[in-house]
C-alpha cells in the first residue's frame, strides 16, 4: 500500500501519521506543498497541525497551495483522502468537504482524550470496526466546531455520511459529551462518495499501546486492502 502525506509549512502531525502508517507497512512519501505532482498512491493524508499558523482561517491558506490542485482532482476521481484535524479544515476550505469548522464554543483550545461512537462501519475507512463501537481518541484544536446548513445536515444524517460522533464512556451522544459545540456532536464527515473523510480526532495518537490505546489503528487497518 502506498500513501502520500502532504506537508505544509506549519504542519506538525506529519511525522506522527507517518509513524502510524509505517507500523502497518504502508510505503509513505512526504509531499511538500510546493510540489505540482502527486505520486500514485492508495491513500492521501492531510495531517494535523497549524498550517500557515492557522492564520486567517485554519486551513484557508493551505487550501490555496500548488499541491491542493492535485489533491482535489485525485479526490474527484475517487482516490481515498483522509484529513485529520487541520487536514479536515483544509478539506473544508478547498471545497472537497462541505460545511464549516468554527471556533470551539468555549473559545479555548481543547486537547484531551475523548470518546467517539462509530455510527456506521459501512465505508473503506471504518470497515474493521463494529458499528456502535466506542473509541477513545485524542483531540487538539481551536476550531473543531462543525457547522452546516439544515439541508446538508439532513443529507449527512440520512446517507450515513457521519461515521463518528462525540459521546461519553457509555456511548451517549449529548450536549455534555460534546467538547466543542459541533452540530449534532459531529466528529467527522464523508463526502457523498465516501472516498474523502475529514475528522477532528487524531487516530494516529492512539496507535501505540505504550502511549495509550490502539483504538485508532483500526482506521489504518481498514484502509489496507
Amino acid at each position, binding site marked *: 500500500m502506498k500513501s502520500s502525506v502532504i506537508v505544509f509549512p506549519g504542519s506538525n502531525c506529519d511525522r506522527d501519521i507517518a509513524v502510524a502508517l509505517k507500523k502497518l507497512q504502508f510505503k509513505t512519501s512526504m509531499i511538500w506543498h510546493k510540489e505540482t505532482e502527486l505520486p500514485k498512491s492508495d491513500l492521501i493524508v492531510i495531517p494535523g497541525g497549524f498550517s500557515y499558523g492557522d492564520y*486567517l*482561517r485554519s486551513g*484557508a*491558506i493551505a487550501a*490555496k497551495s500548488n499541491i491542493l490542485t492535485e489533491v482535489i482532482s485525485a479526490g474527484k476521481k475517487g482516490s481515498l483522502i483522509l484529513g485529520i484535524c487541520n487536514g479536515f479544515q483544509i478539506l473544508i*476550505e478547498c471545497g472537497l468537504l*462541505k*460545511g*464549516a469548522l*468554527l*471556533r*470551539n*464554543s*468555549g*473559545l479555548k483550545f481543547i486537547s484531551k482524550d475523548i470518546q467517539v461512537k462509530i455510527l456506521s462501519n459501512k465505508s473503506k475507512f471504518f470497515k474493521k470496526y463494529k458499528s456502535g463501537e466506542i473509541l477513545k481518541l485524542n483531540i487538539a484544536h481551536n476550531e473543531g*466546531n462543525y*457547522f452546516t*446548513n439544515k439541508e446538508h445536515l439532513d443529507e449527512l444524517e440520512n446517507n450515513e455520511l457521519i461515521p463518528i460522533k462525540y459521546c461519553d464512556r457509555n456511548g451517549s451522544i449529548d450536549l455534555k459529551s460534546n467538547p466543542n*459545540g459541533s452540530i449534532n456532536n459531529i466528529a467527522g464527515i464523508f463526502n457523498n462518495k465516501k472516498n474523502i473523510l475529514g475528522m477532528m480526532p487524531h487516530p494516529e495518537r492512539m496507535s501505540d499501546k505504550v502511549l495509550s490505546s490502539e483504538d485508532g489503528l483500526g482506521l489504518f487497518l481498514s484502509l489496507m486492502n
Partner: protein
Amino acid sequence: MKFAVTITLKNDVLDPQGKVVGQTLKNIGIKNLNSIRQGKFFEIDLDESDSNKGEKKVKEMCEKLLANQIIEDFQIKKI
C-alpha cells in the same frame, strides 16, 4: 489607495465568539446590550490610482482568499 474590508459571519451561522464576548460584557456590568457579532477587519493598501479598479481588485481578494463565502459576507470601503 487604501481600502477597509470587514468580514462578518452570515446571519444564520452561529457566532461562538460573539456569544461569549456578549456574555462577558454583561458580566462586567454592561447593560442595554442587544447583540454583538464578531468579524474580521483588513486594511489594504494598493498601488492603484483608479478607485473602480482598486475596488475590483479588493473584491477579488475577498472572493479568492479573505472571506469564506459559504459562511461569511464581506464589505469593502475606500478610506
